[in-house]
């Protein structure tokens, strides 16, 4: 009994430690290796059975489960109960050696997990990636343009945004100069908030209008995807804003807009920073280098902040779910006992994530607006 208790404690600490470690260390491999120790070889035929358990008679692997949920996938898993699996197969689009291959991801559902010479391994270093069978190193690579789970979620959210905002635009033109109604009155405060408290205050009265469409689009795109990510079932549940490619694209857009709209004053300030002693600029251009690094750091930070916040939220929630299975693998009753606390924590985390969903959308939009403001600020006339 004592031994069990110590094992539980150890597990608990490890799970907690692993999350920040995983978030802040560059090597994610360490995460996986640490998690190996968490694997529990328990004879588990209890309430929740996982496909893996049956296959390999191995214990529940929290790390794998979390990674599977947080990262992108070629199939949209909705439900798994014993042998019954509910999933949406998604189209695979591949470029290999100058040729285009398109087929359904359900083609991979065979013993070798391969189709037309491509395979989608379920484990190993290439797990979740489509590889060419028998590819030689240095040969042509597989370019994967598949409609993955995240891409589909992006499509869905883009469609939702279009439907919502075009209908709102319609109701604006329908009751012109009247008080807002329905959906319009729900979203109008947010639009006004972005206009008055983000755009006007960061960019200034004169130039804010040019950036409004971009700011509104990123705000509502991030906000909607953050919210959808909290909904556990289809069409929600995809970790869109917690995917680094998505945040990277948005950060790059902000970077491009900032760079394009940068005026003379902005560039002069970068090359010849005012208020800095001359020997920091000549003969070694220390300050210009620091400033240019800063220009690149800004969008990089935007990318990492949103990604890390959203991914962390998902990972923590999944971590609590994993606790139930880890304890359940030791003892069914213990699993039930832990579930009470875990569910309470998950509810708390979800409420926190609701707040984070808004805050992160707000922060991304505000910082983008601030960068645009910095790029377009007119020099003060003394």
């Amino acid at each position: 009994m004592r031994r069990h208790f110590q094992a539980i404690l150890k597990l608990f600490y490890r799970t907690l430690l692993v999350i920040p470690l995983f978030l802040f260390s560059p090597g994610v491999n360490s995460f996986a290796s640490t998690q190996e120790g968490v694997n529990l070889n328990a004879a588990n035929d209890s309430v929740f059975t996982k496909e893996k358990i049956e296959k390999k008679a191995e214990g529940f692997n929290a790390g794998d489960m979390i990674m599977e949920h947080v990262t992108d996938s070629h199939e949209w898993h909705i439900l798994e109960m014993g042998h019954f699996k509910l999933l949406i197969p998604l189209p695979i689009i591949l470029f290999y050696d100058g040729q285009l291959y398109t087929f359904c991801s359900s083609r991979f559902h065979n013993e070798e997990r391969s189709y037309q010479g491509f395979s989608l391994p379920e484990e190993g270093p290439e797990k979740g990636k489509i590889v060419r069978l028998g590819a030689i190193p240095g040969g042509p690579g597989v370019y994967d343009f598949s409609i993955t789970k995240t891409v589909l979620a992006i499509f869905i959210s883009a469609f939702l945004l279009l439907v919502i905002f075009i209908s709102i635009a319609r109701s604006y033109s329908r009751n012109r100069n009247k008080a807002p109604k329905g959906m319009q009155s729900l979203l109008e405060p947010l639009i006004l908030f972005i206009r008055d408290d983000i755009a006007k205050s960061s960019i200034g009265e004169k130039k804010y209008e040019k950036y409004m469409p971009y700011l509104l689009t990123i705000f509502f795109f991030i906000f909607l995807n953050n919210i959808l990510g909290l909904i556990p079932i289809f069409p929600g549940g995809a970790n869109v804003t917690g995917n680094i490619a998505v945040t990277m694209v948005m950060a790059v857009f902000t970077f491009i807009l900032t760079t394009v709209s940068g005026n003379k004053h902005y560039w002069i300030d970068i090359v010849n920073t005012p208020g800095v002693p001359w020997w920091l600029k000549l003969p070694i251009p220390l300050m210009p280098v620091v400033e240019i690094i800063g220009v690149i750091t800004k969008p990089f930070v935007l990318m990492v902040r949103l990604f890390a916040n959203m991914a962390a939220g998902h990972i923590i929630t999944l971590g609590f779910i994993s606790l139930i299975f880890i304890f359940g693998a030791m003892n069914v009753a213990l699993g039930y006992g832990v579930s009470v606390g875990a569910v309470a924590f998950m509810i708390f985390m979800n409420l926190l994530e609701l707040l984070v969903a808004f805050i992160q959308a707000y922060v991304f939009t505000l910082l983008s607006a601030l960068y645009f403001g910095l790029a377009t600020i007119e020099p003060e006339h003394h």
Partner: protein
Amino acid sequence: MELITPGLGLIFWMTLVFLALLFLLKKFAWIPILKALKDREDAITDALTSADKAKEEMKQLQFSNEQLLADAKNERDNILNEARKIKEKIIEEARAKASEEAGHITASALENIRNEKMAALTELKNEVGQLSIEIAKKILQRELADPKKQEDYARHLLEEINLN
């Protein structure tokens, strides 16, 4: 490693969708919405400004109305005062004239009375003198019919004169 390695396909699709979304939302949602919001704000500002102006005008109007009313009242009072004064003056004048006339009439009446009286008195005196002379003549005729008596009387008269 997949978590922090951006996938090529995802970057491609995200860029595509995001650009399309940005374009479509800008054209069909953001520009109409922002324009409608601005129009509404302008309309509200205009309405408030014109309401304020109307209020101000009303106040002005009310003020001028009051002014007019006060002026009219003053005018009326003035007219009334003047009329009263004129009335009093007329009455006063009439009274003065009347009393003067009365004085005249009285004076002439008195004069007349006095004249009449004088005439009457003169006539009476004349009559009385005539009568006295007549009587005296008669008495003297009678008295002085007897010479004795004539003598006595003369004596008596003389005595009287002496005594004086």
